[in-house]
């Protein structure tokens, strides 16, 4: 996966969490995700199709998801209810949709978002395409952005 394909997703994530939500955000060094099970308890996932294929996942701890969606919605959620999960889906939708404008090599269609919860799940990523995982450290908790996208 070319490096230039990960940057639009990092920029879209920074824009959402730093500029829009007003959180203090630092992104860490991207790594190749060796263990696809190494994701947090709450993951928003979106599929990419069209002139390439791939998936994008934002993965949070339960507490971080609740804090971030409370900030996003301007409403204090106390538990991981349906509206918080809905909000996680909306965050990944915004990241994927915003990244499209800078992915100039292909025309992409994004799927409706899905949200997975639990401690023991496995995402079946596209075969033979590495998953790049980028850690984000924020004032509301840490999360990872995970992207797998076939080269043009």
């Amino acid at each position, binding site marked *: 996966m070319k490096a230039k394909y990960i940057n639009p997703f990092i920029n879209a994530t920074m*824009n959402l969490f730093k500029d*829009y939500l007003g959180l203090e955000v630092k992104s860490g060094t991207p790594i190749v995700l060796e263990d696809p099970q190494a994701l947090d308890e709450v993951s928003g996932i979106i599929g990419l199709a069209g002139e390439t294929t791939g998936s994008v996942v934002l993965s949070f701890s339960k507490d971080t998801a609740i804090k971030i969606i409370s900030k*996003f919605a301007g409403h204090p959620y106390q538990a991981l209810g349906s509206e918080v999960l*809905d909000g996680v889906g909306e965050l990944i939708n*915004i990241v994927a*949709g915003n990244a*499209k*404008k800078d992915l100039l090599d292909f*025309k992409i269609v994004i799927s409706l978002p899905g949200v997975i919860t639990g401690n023991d799940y496995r995402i079946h990523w596209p075969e033979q395409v590495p998953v790049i995982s980028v850690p984000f450290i924020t004032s509301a908790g840490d999360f990872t952005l995970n992207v797998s996208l076939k080269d043009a």
Partner: protein
Amino acid sequence: MNFLIVDDSAVMRRIHKNILLENKIDESQIFEAENGEVAVKIAENEDIGLFLLDWNMPKLDGLKFVQIIRSIDRYEDTPIIMITSEAAKYNVVDAISAGVTNYVVKPIKGDILWEKISRYIK
């Protein structure tokens, strides 16, 4: 003037509704739909003056909703603000061609969205 918020995300509907309420729009003027199909039914039964419309939704998406709503005589020129995460230029072109009045990319701050909405308030 009535407003119809069309978005499959309950959180987004909450955010948009709060922007309207904060700007003195009465709750009785605000209608909500979780997809285009439900929105068409509400639009047929109510007199909607402004649509706040998402793009990607199950059952009937935003673009198909626009095509249907524009075929109803009384909604031929009613403002439709599409509020979507779809930021690619080709998406904007498709939406405007379909009959969307204004195109806004999420995330958008409440005061900026309200500035766009207020242009259409009679």
